[in-house]
């Protein structure tokens, strides 16, 4: 069977700095073509419970944006072949200043930004700043959009377009129907590479979507996999015994690798 191109979503700082590094490695080993790193925000209003609680856990642990920048930098250094996208909410982008935020990302080798609450026609200069500094800003399309608006978005000339496969939040299951097909066609109409996801957790789903998109996106399923590994090893975020952290991180990497393979190859 052909390998499916996967964009894997990960919450920076979850379960902690070393654990999320292990998860990123597992994703890359498991065949992820792209990584989408979410910077934890206090009010992730477009995310489902799984990602929301991962963000909250990272923040409760004191994880900061500057730690996320370090994480991105080290990933890019060690895996320069894997494109890194960053997902963040508007508040994290506009508070330091859009230009400044994009600059920080450019310096760490980030390729693109996804900011769901900065719609493409009201993005506070995000796309322009990205274009200036050699990044792509990736708009997010939803099936409920008016067709004229979707058409406008599809023809912005962006390298990538993110397609949320159904209305609602991340994390619940999605069925792929005739409507989905039409929607994805409309997304691709302007020549952008379409990244499609929301609720993908199995190979069967990924297979159904793969022919219609450039890459399939999955996220909550990996957060859950990390959570399971953490729980199995009962190492809390505050564990001080280094050896146990290493054992746990190995488990995270291994479980994530398997899950990514399962989604991309059905193995």
């Amino acid at each position, binding site marked *: 069977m052909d390998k499916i191109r996967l964009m894997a979503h990960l919450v920076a700082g979850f379960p902690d700095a070393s654990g999320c590094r292990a998860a990123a490695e597992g994703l890359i080993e498991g065949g992820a073509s792209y990584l989408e790193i979410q910077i934890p925000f206090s009010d992730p209003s*477009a995310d489902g419970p799984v990602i929301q609680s991962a963000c909250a856990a990272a923040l409760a642990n004191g994880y900061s944006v500057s730690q996320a920048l370090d994480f991105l930098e080290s990933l890019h250094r060690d895996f320069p072949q894997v494109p890194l996208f960053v997902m963040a909410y*508007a508040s994290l982008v506009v*508070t330091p200043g859009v230009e400044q935020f994009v600059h920080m990302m450019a310096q760490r080798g980030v390729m693109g930004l996804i900011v769901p609450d900065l719609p493409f026609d009201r993005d506070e200069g995000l796309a322009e700043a990205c274009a200036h500094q050699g990044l792509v800003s990736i708009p997010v399309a939803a099936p*409920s*959009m008016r067709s004229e608006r979707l058409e406008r978005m599809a023809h912005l000339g962006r390298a990538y377009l993110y397609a949320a496969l159904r*209305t609602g*939040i991340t994390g619940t299951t999605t069925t792929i129907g005739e409507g989905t097909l039409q929607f994805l066609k409309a997304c691709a109409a302007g020549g952008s590479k379409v990244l499609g996801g929301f609720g993908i957790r199995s190979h069967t789903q990924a297979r159904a979507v793969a022919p219609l998109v450039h890459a399939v996106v999955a996220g909550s399923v990996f957060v859950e996999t990390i959570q399971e590994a953490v729980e199995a090893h009962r190492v809390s975020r505050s564990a001080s015994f280094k050896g146990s952290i290493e054992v746990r991180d190995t488990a995270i990497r291994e479980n994530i690798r398997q899950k990514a393979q399962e989604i991309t190859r059905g193995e």
Partner: protein
Amino acid sequence: MGEKGYFGPYGGRYVPEVLGRAIEEIEEAFEAACTDRAFQDELALLQRDFIGRPTPLLYAENSSRLLGGADIYIKMEGLAHTGAHKINNALGQALLAKRMGKTRVIAETGAGQHGLATAAACAKLGLSCTIYMGAVDVDRQQPNVATMELFGAQVVPVYAGSQTLKDAINEAFRDWAASFADTFYIIGSALGPAPYPDMVRTFQSVIGKEVKEQLASRGLEPEALVACVGGGSNAIGFFSPYLEAEKPRLIGVEAGGRGTSLGDHAARMTGEGARTGIVHGYKSRFLLTEEGQVAPTHSISAGLDYPGIGPQLAALGRSGRLEFRRASDEEALEALTFFARHEGVVFALESAHAGAVAINLARSLPKGKVVVVNMSGRGDKDLFITAPYFRPAAWAAFLERELAALRAHPSGIAPPPSSGTGLENARGVAHSTTSKLISSPTSREVHHG
């Protein structure tokens, strides 16, 4: 006023595309309703008979005499049905929801007053109602939770984040993203993505219009109008007829809480950590960390501790038309006592912040000047916060007695509910007892947990 949906640099509609359609639909429906005679007539009738409008404008004669300066007048919004100005907006939006053919309403609430108002409006109009409320707020506003359930609403406690209003808003957005085909989201203050700030101001402007007429009929010219500012709905409604004029002075009062450091107050215009940002779908002033995380807030009043402020008020503050002050927890309690003692009026803790500033202002102004303070709500709901403060021992004894009685007769006079106590119900553990006992056409199963 500049670009549509903006107030100077603030406002806008910063929402994920998934919510774009839902908001466009509301914008169209709201614009149509504004010029629809039948809608306006129905609203006016309900305002009169259901809300009890107009609310009185009370001359605080004793207080004014004691303070020795300007005359204080109190706009008695607390006499509106359900005890606060929130009903003006909740009813307006619920009526709009009905006009749009929606069958279900969701709302978020902090103090519980907006939830209460929404639940009442939904009961009146036959709409199903789900209220999101931070778990901390559920704990401190039990009387309102109980009443919301009595109105048939499902109260869903939110355990995420700081477990207060901002987290309830996130949860409402999540629900809405999946449910807007049949569901209308009633936002409780003059904030959120456009057109909410305009819509909320429009429905709340009834306060200011009445004040203007009531003053005119007594031949009075106000020197200053004072209102508390949580999100800013009572303030913007109260100020609305005067925004374009140069007088009177318009004063918004934020929660000064227990101190000036970030985390101890909710002063988005005057406090430490106040920055321009984009949160919850609009651009305004928020209490944020340097990185842009939403900062914790504190106020003795659940209705004032939201980390953002309505964009129009932020713009008016920036342009200088609006003055911002703060009142501390202590000052609010003092003002509450003062008006209770001398006027026989118990302010809501939120409104008492405005009361505190009105007292200082009246003192500093000469006799004959008029200061109008908006009592946005009355204080019944706060008894569980204020009574322990004013009479701790007696209150503790009362609660212990009540608890003992409840344990002895868990069900009161009603048939015993199948599981748990009323308290568990209020926390959303079990579904509302009332809807188990009486199956009403509007009661429905848990839609979203």
